[in-house]
């Protein structure tokens, strides 16, 4: 079977959807030459009106996309670096997201915002290493973090077809992931539906994006010790697949979440709150996150120290297995 890389999957989804729907176009900085590879080949295929190289004016081109969407198009914006989302938070959270309700349902704003390379890029330091998915979930903007190439393909397709604004975070730690894929099976993946990345019976580990790889590695390691870890990948941060998560936790009754965002009010906090409200757990749940208010320091060892990693996850899983009642 051919290998598909995560970045190539995003590129393929974009190309397929542009070919299928002439209202889809992409805009962003340096996308004509595909500086990030997300848009590789698209300029030659679709031309300058559909692959729109923008000046450095994020606030205007983000609202420009909203205006184009109000006029019936389906823009996809590529953001070069994740922190640009801070610059356009107003345009997404306060404009695009609010238009439908504020107009009493007169319009829709089907814009997709893609960040190929969110989270730490290793060596890019403080202003290039954010992973702000929790912010968008908090304001209610649909937020997607695919973990695998097939999901990257299918979720981006669904994001573009969705009638609301959707932010798609492609973690830099996942861009290089490759998997064997029968291209004929590539299909849209619905927003809000998680998947069991590995089944197990002793504990549910919730992981997103590149952290799914880490969770699977930890599950392998613990399998050697006779511990059975289930890895649940929600795929979309918002809306969250609470039912899928509930079904997993009903089997395992133990829960750990690993989340590459800051601790306070982050995605991990949300998963634990859902667990407290709805699940019958045998032990207090745990979360592995970036620290509160974290800024990624430059030096490699410091960068790694701030991101949630396998050792912390291992310790957290062991912790929930030994606390609470017997398993």
């Amino acid at each position: 079977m051919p290998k598909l890389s995560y970045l190539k999957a995003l590129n393929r989804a974009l190309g397929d959807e542009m070919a299928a729907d002439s209202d889809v176009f992409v805009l962003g900085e340096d996308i004509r030459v595909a500086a990030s590879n997300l848009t590789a080949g698209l300029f030659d295929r679709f031309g300058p009106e559909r692959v729109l190289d923008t000046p450095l004016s994020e606030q205007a081109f983000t609202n420009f996309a909203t205006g184009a969407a109000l006029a019936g198009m389906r823009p996809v914006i590529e953001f070069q670096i994740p922190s640009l989302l801070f610059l356009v938070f107003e345009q997404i959270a306060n404009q695009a997201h609010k238009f439908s309700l504020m107009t009493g349902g007169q319009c829709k704003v089907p814009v997709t915002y893609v960040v190929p390379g969110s989270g730490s890029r290793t060596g890019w330091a403080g202003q290039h290493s954010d992973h702000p998915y929790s912010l968008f979930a908090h304001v209610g903007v649909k937020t997607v973090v695919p973990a695998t190439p097939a999901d990257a393909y299918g979720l981006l397709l669904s994001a573009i077809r969705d009638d609301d604004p959707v932010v798609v975070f492609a973690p830099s730690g996942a861009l290089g992931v490759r998997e064997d894929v029968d291209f004929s099976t590539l299909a849209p993946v619905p927003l809000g539906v998680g998947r069991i990345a590995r089944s197990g019976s002793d504990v549910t580990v919730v992981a997103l994006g590149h952290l799914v790889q880490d969770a699977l590695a930890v599950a392998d390691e613990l399998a050697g010790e006779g511990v059975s870890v289930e890895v649940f990948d929600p795929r979309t941060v918002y809306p969250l697949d609470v039912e899928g998560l509930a079904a997993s936790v009903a089997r395992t009754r133990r829960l750990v979440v690993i989340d590459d965002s800051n601790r306070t009010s982050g995605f991990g906090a949300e998963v634990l709150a859902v667990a407290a409200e709805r699940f019958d757990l045998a032990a207090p749940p745990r979360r592995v996150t970036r620290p509160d208010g974290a800024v990624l320091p430059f030096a490699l060892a410091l960068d790694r120290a701030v991101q949630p990693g396998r050792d912390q996850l291992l310790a957290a899983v062991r912790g929930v297995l030994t606390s609470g009642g017997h398993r």
Partner: protein
Amino acid sequence: MTSVDLYRTVRLIRRFEERAIEFVRSGEIVGGIHPYIGEEAVAAGVCAALRPDDLITSTHRGHGHVLAKGVNPARMFAELMGRESGLNKGRGGSMHAADFGLGILGANAIVGAAGSIATGAAWAHRRRGRDVVAVSFFGDGAMNEGMLLEAFNLAALWHVPVLFVCENNGYATTMPVAGAVAGSITGRARAFGIPAFTIDGQDPEKVLAATTAAVQRARAGKGPTFLECLTHRLDAHHTFEHRARLSYRSAEELSAGWSRDPVEIQGARLAAEDRAAVDAEVEALLDAAAGIALGSAHPDPAAALEYLYASPEVMR
């Protein structure tokens, strides 16, 4: 568009606003409004130059733009009163009034935000083969928002059929334009290669003439035009201003403004009996509109988050 039509529009906007201020005082409108009194000639002249399928984006001070583009005053009153029959089903209020069927992409409460929305919408229509023009209204205060200047750049660069209409009423809330804008307003637009003109914003016919030329230019594919309309806001920034008792302009300045009232300027062009007939017509229309709005239902609180998503979604 005749002199009578232009007069009808300025008079409609004026009387609509005066009634809306009364509804703020009586508590029928909660949250207050930003009165457009004194600036009516801009909305009337600009919108008179547009086709029904042309687009506008508006501001926090948007009643005049929306009325001039043709909305039903009953639905506009109902929106201000938060009723289900309002333009936005009571979900938007004064600062978000929209009617997509009339090309009104919404008033926008973030100063300077809509210039880029209008630019994107106009670009998209052209790409789809329609010769639609978009107008973005904004105040002098917006000229200091970087996002708006970015929009000028995109519009000029891509020859987008959009008109930037700056309503220079001399103040951003209480900040005088001289204390806020370095250089000149038109100079900023010209720096992007956009033809920019300063016009008398109190005379609807002058506004109409300037806008007609700009619309022709846009439809011919020649890109954006910038109009700085010199005007006067003759009432408060917002209806709460009277309570706050803000002091930032003199009585002389205000009375000088009133000496160039657009309703009088346009009204003087009509025969007395024609003018009286329009006044009576507007009064009857607004009586009926206010009655319809006051009699219409309030939204069901259980539907407070209806329309949040365009695609069906189950939220917790």
